[in-house]
């Protein structure tokens, strides 16, 4: 372990503060799933990922991460800043004119840490597979990580990719699903039920594991365990249970905070629950 669980939880608390402040600052953006995935991003970037903050597009010899559900950009931007990819002061520019921190992640403004644009849903798993194939051709045995939203799995391209990866033994790929059960129009079970995702991915030939995405110890252990499963002929799917809005009590578990910004009063209420551990931007 590079960090204790307590240290990682402290980082996560700061990232959550940043998320709420960023979304409040521009009165737009997606706090719910950003908060839900904060523990995953913290564990990934501060504990699991073999990466350099001196960013290159190719990332030769490094693990790469792809975010498919690009609307949770606040959590990614804050994590990248605290990991050292760029100065945290830039978080104040989120979604504002001229910013590198676009509403959805993009390579267009050359923000370090981003390797492809995402936001139009369903494309990230294919991209991650492509990056994995290139690494294999280059004799680079690093890992490829991807994060997908659960509602996003309603997009058909995911299932093209899900069929491709096991057949082609893309086995250094670890895809996590943010399994929060919510999407814009309501619970996934009411909009278009995903049913038994574990059985579906297993039927496609994936090795599926389950983690609690809001328990730091569990997510760190789960991602380390996922790494031990790579190189054995199957891609890995981490079905990661999370709570939308985790860390801010009035946002927890509701799709209503998918894409809504808090007002001044709500901001104060949220920040009171999230200790400032690394200093606000």
């Amino acid at each position, binding site marked *: 372990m590079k960090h204790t669980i307590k240290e990682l939880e402290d980082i996560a608390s700061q990232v959550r503060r940043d998320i709420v402040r960023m979304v409040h600052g521009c009165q737009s953006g997606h706090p719910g799933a950003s908060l839900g995935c904060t523990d995953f991003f913290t564990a990934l970037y501060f504990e699991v990922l073999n990466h350099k903050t001196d960013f290159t*597009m*190719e*990332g030769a010899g490094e693990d*790469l991460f*792809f975010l498919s559900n690009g609307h949770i950009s606040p959590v990614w931007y804050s994590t990248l800043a605290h990991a050292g990819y760029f100065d945290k002061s830039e978080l104040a520019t989120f979604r504002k004119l001229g910013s590198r921190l676009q509403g959805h992640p*993009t*390579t*267009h403004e050359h923000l370090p840490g981003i*390797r*492809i*644009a*995402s*936001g*139009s849903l*369903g*494309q*990230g*798993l*294919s*991209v*991650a*597979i*492509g*990056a*994995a*194939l*290139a*690494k294999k*051709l*280059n004799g*680079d045995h690093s890992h490829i990580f991807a994060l997908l939203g659960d509602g996003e799995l309603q997009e*058909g*391209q995911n299932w*093209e*990719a899900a*069929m*491709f990866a096991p057949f*082609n033994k893309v086995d250094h790929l670890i895809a996590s699903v943010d399994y929060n059960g919510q999407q814009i129009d309501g619970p996934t079970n009411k909009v278009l039920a995903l049913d038994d995702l574990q059985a579906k991915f297993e039927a496609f030939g994936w090795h599926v594991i389950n983690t609690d995405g809001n328990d730091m110890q569990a997510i760190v252990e789960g991602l380390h365990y996922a790494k031990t499963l790579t190189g054995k002929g199957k891609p890995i799917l981490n079905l990661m249970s999370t709570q939308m809005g985790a860390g801010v009590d009035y946002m927890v578990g509701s799709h209503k905070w998918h894409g809504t910004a808090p007002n001044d009063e709500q901001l104060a209420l949220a920040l009171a629950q999230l200790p400032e551990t690394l200093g606000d931007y």
Partner: protein
Amino acid sequence: MKKYTYTEKKDTRSGFGAGLHEAGKKNENVVALCADLVGSLKMDAFIKDFPERFTQVGIAEANMIGIAAGMTIGGKIPFTGTFANFSTGRVYDQIRQSVAYSNKNVKICASHAGLTLGEDGATHQILEDLGLMKMLPGMVVINPCDYNQTKAATMAIAEYEGPVYLRFGRPVIPVFTDPDQKFEIGKAWMVNEGTDVTIIATGHMVWKAIEAGEKLAELGIDAEIINIHTIKPLDDEAILTSVKKTGCVVTCEEHNKFGGLGESVARLLTTELPTPQEFVATNDTFGESGTPDQLMSKYGLDAVNIVEAVQKVIGRKKA
């Protein structure tokens, strides 16, 4: 009228296959992907020599574009192959976000473009692809005119850094360009110098423009013929220089007149040098089943249609 002859007819898709094979030999980063149309795209030679650099994606074009975009991150130069319809309209958003907006070095290679796909009919005959692709910021759009030019273009785009759409076709047509040509992206080819009218043609329509030029010469009309193989970026200078001389223009393409080469030329001329223009193109229509020759004739894409358009546009010239 300069004399053009040919000794054989070949399909432009075979030019792509040969060019891909050559590009693969020259650069080990060149990789190919196909969505279940290896034979149609003439990828066999590449696959035989570089099996580890070929990815069969199956009938899953969206996944193919995403995988290709991802492969560029590891320094690869992916050439994706399927029919033009499935290379563009079917995967427009994947191209838009993962390739164009992300500025990835993907070469989208599209066969069976236009009416000359023939008997399969309108579901497969895309006439809107040039428009779709040229509207994407940063996308280079190329539509070569014969086997040799397609081969040269394929090799050239491997050396160009950035997203490219390369359009070619199925029918065998005369091979009349130089087999050793150097293909320069964005640089027009002067097919024939003339003084009375500028005929600007792309793809399969270039040979038809040459046929039209011969007929026009018999009628005493001296046509300048320019091959625009690169629709975007457009060779503004070549077009303006010619039109300054001739004073009128006919554009020829196997594509809808909405959104194609003709509109790009019209946009240029409207702002720089307003000039009478006629369009030889399909007229806001889908195609249908038939032989390539029957379809080109029925939809007004023959040499005779170019001749008529020239006569009309010359009549519109200011005295």
